[in-house]
């Protein structure tokens, strides 16, 4: 049961706290991704789990064992470093053998383990090369192999794909996940790349300023962000966020902002709310400011006006293969929309007027003061 438990973990560098009071359970055989901008404390957590920094307060348990004060080598944890940290003065074989030498293992068994890892990563031919003679992708595989050769139940990954080019990153991402599944290890992966996190994670832990902002599956984090930070950090392009007010107009409830409005419940198929009613949490915001978030792919565009559509001026279009990202001006704000390039051919670059709509069921609402999600 190599689950990892962090209890009220606080990590300080001098007087500044890099991590403050973080509690987290990583389940057995789970792929957990710590996601956040640089300086959010995610790497500090990883380094504390490995034992490279001592927490100022709190405890770390691995598999039910308190390892908070244990020497790194006694924690039964393996790690893949961003810069791979390969031993430059040892061959690939030496790099694989070095961790095993600490285990007092017989020569025959050691050779066997090295062969297995080399086979798994398809680098039998490279065993006698030195790290400097390998390409970046091969070096990364050596780093993976060195972490696996000891068969630790826990694998820590510190931005392991950060130094690879885009194509290799996608390939390696898939193989990392496959290896983690096949070997049944518990993985904690640190990254600032939200696409990587969404692709790899069983659960994502979104962090900011040393605190956890949300823990959840990729779907939860993407579709129901707990707060404004998570909403804007996860997803490309970043979620559009616009200030507006909840008002009542006759029988209709509207979210009205500068140059746009959203009909509350208008497109909510099967909405239980009767006409003239809004769900209770939202009703508290009547005649008050609220933040409306809408992802680019949920913005609708049309060449002609329609009900609940409002005018927008196209600024720039960025074709992306089959899709296109349209930057347009709504009120005083820039709103980005993403959609099919052919369907949206009418949205040409350069002050073209189009009509946009924000379908209410796709909207995310946030309190303007606490930045927390308002449930609808």
């Amino acid at each position, binding site marked *: 049961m190599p689950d990892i438990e962090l209890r009220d973990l606080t990590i300080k560098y001098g007087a500044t706290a890099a991590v403050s009071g973080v509690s987290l359970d990583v389940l057995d055989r789970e792929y957990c991704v710590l996601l956040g901008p640089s300086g959010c404390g995610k790497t500090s957590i990883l380094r504390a789990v*490995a*034992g*490279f920094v001592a927490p100022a307060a709190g405890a770390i348990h691995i598999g039910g064992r308190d390892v908070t004060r244990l*020497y*790194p*080598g*006694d*924690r039964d*944890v*393996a*790690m893949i*470093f961003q*810069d791979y*940290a390969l*031993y*430059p*003065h040892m061959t690939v074989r030496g790099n694989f053998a*070095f*961790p095993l*030498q*600490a*285990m007092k293992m017989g020569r025959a068994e050691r050779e066997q383990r090295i062969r297995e890892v080399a086979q798994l990563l398809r680098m039998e031919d490279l065993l006698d090369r030195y790290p400097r003679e390998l390409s970046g992708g091969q070096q990364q595989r050596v780093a993976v192999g*060195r972490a696996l050769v*000891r068969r630790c139940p826990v694998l820590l990954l510190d931005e392991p794909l950060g130094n690879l080019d885009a194509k290799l990153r996608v390939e390696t991402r898939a193989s990392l996940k496959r290896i983690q599944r096949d070997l049944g290890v518990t993985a904690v992966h640190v990254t600032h790349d939200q696409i990587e996190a969404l692709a790899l994670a069983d659960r994502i832990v979104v962090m900011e300023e040393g605190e956890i902002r949300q823990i959840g599956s990729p779907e939860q984090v993407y579709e129901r962000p707990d707060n404004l930070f998570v909403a804007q950090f996860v997803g490309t392009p970043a979620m559009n966020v616009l200030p507006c007010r909840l008002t009542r107009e006759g029988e209709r409830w509207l979210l009205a902002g500068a140059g746009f409005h959203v009909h509350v419940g208008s497109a909510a198929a099967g909405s239980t709310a009767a006409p003239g009613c809004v769900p209770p949490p939202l009703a508290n915001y009547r005649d008050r400011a609220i933040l409306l978030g809408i992802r680019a792919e949920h913005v609708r565009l049309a060449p002609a006006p329609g009900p609940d559509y409002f005018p927008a001026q196209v600024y720039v279009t960025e074709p992306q293969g089959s899709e296109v990202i349209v930057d347009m001006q709504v009120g005083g704000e820039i709103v980005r929309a993403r959609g099919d390039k052919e369907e949206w051919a009418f949205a040409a670059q350069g002050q073209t007027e189009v009509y946009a709509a924000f379908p209410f069921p796709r909207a995310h609402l946030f309190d303007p003061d606490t930045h927390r999600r308002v449930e609808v």
Partner: protein
Amino acid sequence: MARLKVILKYVAALGATALFVFPLAWMFLTSVKPRVDVFAKPPVFIFTPTFDNYSRVLDSEFMLQLLNSAIIAGISTAFSLTLGALAAYGFSRYGRFKRVDNLLFWILSLRMLPPIAVVVPFYILLRWAHLFDTRFALIMIYSIFNISFAVWLLKGFFDEIPPQLEESAMLEGHSPPVVFLRVALPMVRAGLATTAAFCLIQSLNEFLLALLLTDVDAVTAPVGLANFQRYFGLEWGQFAAAATIFVVPIILFTVLVRHHLVRGMSFGRMG
């Protein structure tokens, strides 16, 4: 134009090289000249070479002094390198305590001391401890200077290795001494070579302390060379032969480690 520039560069380089090589060449020529040609005016460049001077030097006490120099410089260098590497690693990796800069400066300040300032106290101390005119005394005294140098130079090299390598080794279950010996130390090989070269050259060249703290048994080669100044004048031929014997190993060693020396002089901050 560009070609002219290259040619000028080579001319300048040749000039500088000649300036440095000439004394060495002159020393060697003097050592193989017959006695009469040594003082020939204008200097002669064509003569029958003789190895008379060499055979005389090889039979003299200079050979013992050469051995003294080798032993003193060798042991002091090995000792300083060992202690220096350990201390430098400690400062580099665990030097995050208060006043660490003061401590480092204190170590450096040992080198700022002009030897003449301590020669009398050293003389009295050594007399008192019955260590006057022993190789051991010179080994220890040279090590004071060499260690401070080694700590500073090697700390620069250790600072350059990414700590992740050692962290990785620790995580793999290796103890700190193993991490030091098998990961950190092999990565500063260039630094060790540079430091060794500088320590050796310093110890071999030292004159003042060796002159005043030795008498017969522990006399080193530089002092021995000065002793060729006899009451009837300097034995130029033998002097040059002895100096050549002394200098050749140093030149060979320097040529061997020249790449490291260049890096060392820039304090490990290159490549």
